[in-house]
Structure formats: C-alpha cells, structure tokens
C-alpha cells in the first residue's frame, strides 16, 4: 500500500519552521557568553512546572498533558555559561540589541516587513525545557517571500527567540536538562504551507539555509539549526515534526506523515462504520493485580517480579481490528497508544503494553488470552490492552488509552511528533494552540526606528538567488554559480569580478573548485584574506601568471601568507616564459620524445601538450602552449 501512496493526490501541504542560532557575543536576555558549551556542571536545581489557566479558565491541552506526567525537572548549571537568569531567579535584562539588528537583516533578506515596535511574548512550554516555563519570543518581520522554482514561497514571519535547554535524560518521572544552550539567541523563519510534495520541502529548506548562512551571522555546527516540518493532508490536520536536524531527512518524514494521516482517516471511517460516533464508544479499566501472577507472558512476568509492577487491563468495546490497523509502515495503531502512554504516563520501559490483536507471535498465548477475555469480559467485537507499572501511572495510562481511541473518531489529532532515524515519527506532545502565548510583563516594548532599519538595509548583502543570477549572466554555469553564490567567498567573487581584469569563469573556478581541491590536500586556504586574493587577481590580470600556475602559487601563499607572491614566482622560476623560450622548450621536448611510439599517431600533439604543461608548471597559458605545439607538429 505504501509504495502506491501519492501524497499529492491527498492535497498534501507542508510548511517549515527553521530555527537557526545567530552569532552574538552574549545571550539574548542576560549577559552570559553565547556559544559556550560544556558537559561539566557545578550545581543543580529541581523544579516542577504547573499549568496556568487559559483565558477561558481552562487548561491548554498540552499544559494539562504535561502536568499529568508530574515530572521532576533537574537543571544542570555550569558556572561559566549560566547566571541566575537562566535559573529563573532573576528577571530578564534588556533584550540584546546586536541580536535584533541581525534579525532585522535576515528579515529584510527574506523580503519581510519590519514591525514598528518589538513586543516580547511568552510561549509556554511545560516539558521543563525552559526553567521559566515559557520561551521569550518576539516578531521582528512578517509577510516576506523567497523565490522557489517559478513561484514565491511565503514567509509568514521571522521571530527572534531564546533557545531552550539540552535534554540529558528522561527516565520515568525525572527529566534532566543541561542549561548551557538556554537563552542563546536564535531566529525562527516560518514559511507558509506552500510546499506540495515531500521533495519541495527539502528544496525550500535548502534555499532558506543558503540565505541564512550567506549573512555570515548564523552559527554553524551541531545543534545550531533545528527544523520543524508541518504536514497536513486534506481532511487531516497540521502535525508538527519537531527538531529535524538534517534536510535530507525531510522528504521521507513528510511522506510518512502524510501516509499516517491518510491511514488515520481510514481508521476514523472504520470506527464510525462500527459505532457511528465517539459517544457510542466505551472503554473499561480493570485492575488485574489479583490475577497478575497467573499470566505467562515474559514481559508481564518480568515487570511484576523484577520491577514490582501492577497489571491493568483496558477493554475497548466494539472496536476489534483497531489496534492492528496500519498507521506507519510496519507500525499499527497500538504504536500510537504505546507512544502516548510512554510520554504521558511515564511508562518508558518499552514495550509498555500488550494487546489482544498482536498476531506477530510476541503477543499473548492462548491461556493468557483466555484470562484476559474472561477477566475483562471481552466480547467478540472488543479488543483489550494490558499495561503495567505503578498504580498511579497505570491509571493515567488507562485513561489516556481511552482518550486516544476517542480522538481516533475525529481522525488526526493535533500533535507534535519527533523524527526517528528510520524516517518514521513518534508522539512527542499535543500541539499547543495560540492560547499559550501571552505578553511578557517583564520586558518593555522597543521601537524600531526607520533610521535603524535603513542603515541595516543599506549594508544588506545580496541574496544568494540574486547573486546566482548575476553570476550566470557573467557566463558561469548555473551549478557553479549556485555554489559560489552561497559560499563564504561570494562577496569576494563579486568584488574581483567588478575589477573586470580576469574572466569571471576563472575567478569562479579559483574560488570554488580550486579551493576545494587544495583543501583536500590540507592546504590552509583560510590563511588567505581578501588582500591576498586581490593580489592574485592582479597577477593574473597582468599576465604574471596563468591559470595553470595558480595551484602552486595559492598553496605557497597559504603556507607563507606574509611573503610577496612576486618573490616566490621569481625564486621558483615561475614567471611567464618569453615566446621564443617557449618555442624552444616545445621543440626540445618534442625532440626528446620523437622515438616514442604512439598507439594513434594523430594524438601526438596532445601528448606533447601534456608533457610541456608538466614541464612548464604554468609558466605559459595552455592556449599559448597549444599554439606552439601545433606549430611544432606542423614542422615535423
């Protein structure tokens, strides 16, 4: 079934949220140094997160779920990288203005409009990933676009926000976070749901990544970029796949999520077909503690004997077939349930359930099945689930299982999911709504003056797609033009080309292909600055050296950045040969090899060309040599 699934047939839509840390000296709301990570810690604090009441006097779905888990949250504190702000024992300091300037620059590059006044909001997260229980975030720009294929992909907004903690472990009721990354400034680029195929999501992700990197003001390296991918199909709903580290993973994840939604819609129809509506569904919870010793299944035995667990049964009335229904390739609806109770009831010792529809051979044997059927009074159209753990956790789990089946009558629940390595996804939490946003009463609004925005606009680097177009017009191949327009050398290339002394193709080659090949040979290219490149450009322009001589010269300069290249060329005898000497050299080499027999005699000029080039190491251009070689051949 999977092989035939075509997401576009179900009006798949996908959008991206790209989070990228930016380069600032200090963090966003305190004066701690930015980008200082370590695995050392000096102290810990313990906190709990309580849901706060929403505007309508109700708890937000995510909030309630996270409160159900009753987690002890431990923060590891490293003296070097955190202060009392990160501990939530000091209110925020004024927002980092350097970060605002960078965010404005990126917003302008994304063709966004800039807000008149920055208002800081709190976005609630009760998973403990931020000690305050909320992330401070603010919109800097909105309503922008980036070009993609022959259309524009909308940018809904660009936000500036503080980064969260790094999770160290999450075992049962204790979750531990490292705080060094907390409050690092990052920007969030939110695209409109304009991508229609899994492949497009990856391609748009690359366009955005290229743009952000070209500013030189975003951080690189592991953990500096995280992407959330939003997916929905017709009749489904927006599901967020959180924290995808690498773009190549996008298409598979998007494809599988579209497939999962399609399957959940099937399951909805299946359930409605059986029971007409969720009101007719009933789940019963049974304590099986007094019978638990009679079970044979090794998982149950181990849990009861080794971990002191109690057994609980949940009868799902009238929905036989549900647990076995496919949701993702190789996974069934039972997996959806298992994931929910792993997160919400803290039953994280997997597998955490067994059900009556597991026919894989790992399920219940006949006697256990009989025991389950009798103790939960299962009718032929019912199915049952067994869970084990503490009394409180199994009770939470049982209620959650019933709640998840009820949700299945509505199709696709609003969820945040986490990416697995195999391209499938696991449940992470319920997707929060706009109700979790509220103003940060600790921070005053900041007006962004027209002057400030204009100063940044004047210094904007060209966008990669604009530059690529310019390079193509200069005659550079689209492939190289793309590479150059997104490389750190992009502005240098532009400057050298403006000089018009050297062919743009040669410049593009030197700054892309040649650099890469020298790097592979461990040449320390980073030692060369813009002045070095200008100098090299002048040497080429003044015909002091030819393309063929560049690798030697550049390698030498990289190793000896304070030497004068002219001295090197003189000392190494690399300056251009006068035409007469060139002709003599060609004649000499031709003579030396006259005895050599060739398989095809007509290739002789080409062979001679190679030999001469090797001998001259770039002291003449290939073109000049070729002319000489041809003359020589005609003489013979």
């Amino acid at each position, binding site marked *: 079934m999977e092989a035939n699934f075509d997401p576009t047939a179900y009006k798949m839509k996908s959008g991206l949220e790209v989070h990228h840390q930016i380069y600032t000296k200090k963090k966003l709301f305190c004066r701690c140094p930015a980008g200082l990570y370590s695995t050392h810690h*000096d*102290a*810990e*604090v*313990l*906190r*709990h*997160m*309580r*849901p*706060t*009441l*929403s*505007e309508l*006097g*109700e708890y937000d779905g995510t*909030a309630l779920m996270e409160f159900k888990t009753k987690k002890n949250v431990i923060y590891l504190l490293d*003296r070097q990288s955190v202060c*009392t702000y990160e*501990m*939530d*024992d*000091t*209110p925020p300091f004024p927002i980092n203005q350097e970060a605002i300037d960078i965010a404005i620059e990126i917003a302008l590059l994304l063709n966004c*409009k*800039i*807000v*008149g*006044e*920055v*208002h800081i*909001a709190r*976005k*609630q997260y*009760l998973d403990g990933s931020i*000690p*305050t*229980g*909320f992330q401070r*975030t*603010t*919109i800097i720009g*909105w*309503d922008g676009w980036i070009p993609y294929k022959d259309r524009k992909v909308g940018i809904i*907004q660009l*936000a500036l926000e503080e980064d969260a903690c790094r999770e160290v472990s999450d075992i049962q009721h204790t979750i531990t976070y490292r705080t060094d990354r907390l409050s690092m400034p990052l920007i969030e680029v939110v695209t409109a749901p304009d991508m229609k195929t899994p492949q497009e999501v990856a391609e748009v992700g690359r366009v955005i990544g290229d743009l952000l990197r070209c500013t030189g003001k975003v951080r690189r390296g592991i953990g500096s970029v995280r992407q959330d991918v939003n997916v929905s199909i017709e009749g489904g709903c927006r599901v967020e796949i959180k924290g995808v580290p690498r773009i190549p993973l996008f298409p598979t994840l998007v494809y599988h999520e579209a497939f999962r939604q399609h399957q959940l819609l099937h399951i909805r129809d299946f359930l409605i077909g059986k029971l007409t509506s969720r009101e007719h569904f009933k789940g019963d919870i049974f304590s099986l503690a007094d019978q638990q010793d009679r079970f044979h299944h090794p998982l149950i035995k181990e849990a009861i004997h080794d971990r002191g667990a109690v057994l609980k049964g949940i009868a799902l009335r009238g929905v036989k077939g549900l647990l076995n229904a496919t949701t993702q390739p190789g996974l069934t609806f039972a997996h959806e349930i298992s994931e929910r109770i792993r997160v919400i009831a803290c039953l994280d010792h997997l597998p955490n359930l067994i059900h009556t529809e597991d026919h894989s051979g790992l399920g219940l044997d006949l006697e256990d099945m009989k025991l389950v059927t009798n103790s939960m009074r299962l009718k032929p159209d019912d199915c049952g689930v067994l869970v084990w753990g503490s009394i409180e956790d199994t009770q939470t789990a049982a209620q959650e299982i019933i709640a998840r089946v009820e949700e299945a009558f509505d199709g696709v629940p609003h969820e945040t999911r986490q990416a697995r390595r195999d391209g499938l996804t696991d449940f992470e939490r319920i997707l929060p709504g*706009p*109700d*979790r*946003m*509220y*103003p*940060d*009463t600790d921070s*005053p*609004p900041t*007006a962004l003056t027209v002057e400030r925005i204009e100063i940044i606009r004047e210094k904007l680097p060209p966008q990669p797609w604009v530059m690529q177009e310019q390079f193509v017009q200069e005659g550079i191949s689209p492939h190289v033009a793309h590479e150059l327009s997104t490389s750190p050398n992009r502005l240098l290339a532009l400057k050298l080309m403006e000089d018009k002394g050297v062919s743009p193709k040669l410049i593009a080659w030197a700054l892309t292909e040649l650099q890469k090949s020298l790097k592979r040979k461990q040449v320390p290219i980073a030692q060369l600055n813009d002045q070095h490149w200008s100098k090299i450009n002048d040497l080429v322009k003044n015909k002091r050296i030819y393309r063929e001589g560049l690798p030697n010269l550049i390698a030498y300069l990289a190793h000896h950045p304070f030497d004068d290249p002219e001295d090197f060329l003189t000392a190494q005898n690399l300056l251009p040969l006068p035409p007469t000497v060139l002709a003599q050299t060609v004649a000499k080499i031709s003579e030396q090899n006259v005895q050599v027999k060739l398989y095809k005699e007509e290739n002789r000029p080409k062979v001679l060309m190679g030999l001469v080039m090797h001998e001259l190491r770039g002291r003449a251009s290939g073109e000049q040599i070729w002319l000489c070689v041809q003359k020589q051949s005609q003489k013979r």
Partner: protein
Amino acid sequence: MDNSEDLKGYRGTARNLLIAHKARVWGDVVVQTTQGEFTGIILPRSETADDQHVVLKLPNGYNIGLRVDTIHKIEEVGYKKAHYKIPEKTFPTNPLKANVTLLGTGGTIASRLDYRTGAVIPAFSPGELYGAVPELVDICNLNTIKLYGEFSENIGPTHWMGIAKAVAEHIEAGADGIVIGHGTDTMHHTAAALTFMIQDPPVPVVMVGSQRSSDRPSSDAALNLINACRTAGYSDIAEVLVCMFGPTSDQYDLLHRGTRVRKMHSSYRSTFRTIGERPMARVSPSEIVYIREDYHKRRRDDRSVKLFPYFDERVGIVYYYPNMKPNVIESMIDNGYKGIIIAGTGLGHVNKPLYPALKRACESGIHVYMTVQTLWGYVQMFVYDTGRDIMDLGVIPTDNMLPEVAYVKLGWVLGQTHDREEVKKLMLTPVSDEITEREPIDGYLVMQGGLPEMDYYFKSYKR
C-alpha cells in the same frame, strides 16, 4: 467616542489616530498600513510607552506595535473585550480538616494572566483558589477575606493595624490558623508589625507570597500556599511566621519568625532568610520538621488574643553613609519626627559632624536608637570611643534588632507611650526574638562562592 476605557493607555498622536478612525481598545480590526494589511485586536497600551505606536494582538498570539505614521485606515469588524473571570469550583468542606482563614492584602499568590493584556488577575475566592491550586482541598477548609488590594510597597501602618484586628477577629471566630497573602517586598515589615500587635495568639499566623507570580508555570506560589495552609492548619507554632521557599529548588519552605526575617535578594525564590538565628521549621507538602523547640505553642482550649493595634507614624530610619551631613538629622527634627532609627556602620557608628544634630534630637525629646547596617551581629558601642560618645548624646543601642524591625517597633511603642524610660523599656524588652540573648554558631551563614567547602557543597548537594 473619547471614552478613556476605549482608548486605555493611548495618548497624543496614537490616541488621535484611534479617535479619527473610530477605533477602540478590544476592537477586532483590519488595519491598512503602508506595510500591508493586518488583522488583530487592538490592545490597551502601557501609559509609560510612547504615543507613536498602536499595539495589535495577531491571530497567532503574538503582539506587535504598528507605527502610527504607517497606518492609513483602521476598520473595526468586531469587538472582543477581555473578561476577567476565573473559574470557580465549589470548595468542598470536610469536618475532619482544619479551618484556615486566608486574608488577602493584594499579593497575587494565586492568579492568572489575562492573555490579551498581560494584566495579572488575582484569584482569591476559595472557589477560584481551588481552580488554581486544587491540592488545597486535601489540606484544609478554606475561608477567604479580601482586606486590601495593595502592592506590598504601598502597605503601611494603617494596613498593619487593620490586618492585626482582622487576624484577632478571625482567631476569636474559631479559625485553626490564619494565612495572610502579601506582596514580598515589605512582607518582613508587616511580619514584624503583626508580631508586636498580635501577642500570645493561640494559633499560627502565617504570611505567604510568591517571588514568581502564579501566572508562570515555574511559579513558587502554589507550593508556598500549600505549605502555608498546612502550617496554619496543623503546625504547633502559634506565632507570626513567614512561609517562603527554603532553597531555590522546589523542595520545601522555611518558617521564619516575624521579627528575624528579611528579604535578602531582589528576585530569588529563596529570598527570605532568618538573620542571626535558625529558622523555626521547614515545611513541605508531606511534613513539617521543627528546627527550633523554643516556640510559642498552639493552644486548643481558648481563642483569646492580645491585640495592640498602635502606631505613631512620626518615625524614620537613617541609613548612615560616610560624609553624611547633619542636616539629614536636622530636617527630621524640624519636621516633627518623634523617633529615629539609625542603621550605623560596623558596631553602630556615625561620624563626628553628626553629633551636635543627634544631641539636639535627643534633647528635643526624639527617641534615637542605634542598629547595624551589617544586619548580622550586635550593636556594641563600648568597644570604641566613638560608640561611647554617641551613647553620651542619648542614642540607645538595640543589640541585634534588625533596622526595619527597630523602625516598626519604635513606631509601635510610640503609638502607646512617649515616656522616655517606658519607651526604652519596651524597646529593649523583646516581644519575640527581635533581640536575642545569643547568636547561635550557625546564625550567620552567608555562603560564598569560590570557597573550597562551597564547591564541595555544590558538588555534593547540587542545590
């Protein structure tokens, strides 16, 4: 149209713009600007903010400010005024549980944030508190009385006397314990005042607040309130206590005696500390562990309270600094002050140029008492000549009374008598540990980062 509620916080240019477009706060609007079109709700503006922006709440929950000079049209398509309502659930009563009365003075011990404005709406009735902190039901039967709605910095002697009377009234009416919700800034002033005004109470009087308001998921409010209710209902200490976080971690609260407690950090959760003594007890949702044994015990057979609701407001604190000029003291004399508390340097000193002014103050009948700005330690004015000279002027040392406590006590004493000897006797006779005879060896513990033993402490105990 020029209704102040409809233009709340807007002034000048922004106000005129809203009036011109017949737009108002809470209006669900479509705004046309040179930057494009926006939909959202117009929010009230902070009165201290400029008059060049209109604040809009976007449908995704974010707020942004739109520059007035970019707006050319505002069209109201709806109106969504925030409704300030907290869900009420009937607070169940159980005859087996203690009856606790919660007196509110304005601290937002339980509250929620209005998502549209950011305003904090206090939860106060039992039903509201039950909605916000459902654990309370398992602890006690709750009765709530709203006395005031003041930020803690605005609480003063009138409130202290009002609270004291209300506490006495509710104890006499049969409460098993009193909890007072209070802002944290001046909680220790109020705690000291209540200690002097309500003497020999039969039940605990527990002050509580929060350092992180309860609209934040990481708030300390709920745990403080739970612990305060447990203390009021079940602890054996019938005194005025402050119940606030012990460590910054969510572990337990400390119970501090009202006369020895002080707020020591502007923002930490564990800001309240007992100075120069050990706290009375620690309390968590599961237990109360007594640290000291010399406390005033709960009585179950009577309901009598000795009430002394007096205060003379003509009292001030002078925080001495090098080169202080005598005119600081002189202006207090000339303005009719009757009592001055000096927070002196070291063992209780001020500079020589102040002597004539202090002499004049004492001679004109002003009661002048010396405390130490070091907070820890005793005033000792015999060690140096300076101290003896100052005492000769008529300045009286107060041992280890905290400056704020001395201020509150002097006002309270002067509310009862102005007789010099009587005042001195009352000042120097402790009601409840405002002066202690001895400082325990672990009464002064200011941890110092960088000491090897502190590094060891952090490494071993982590919090």
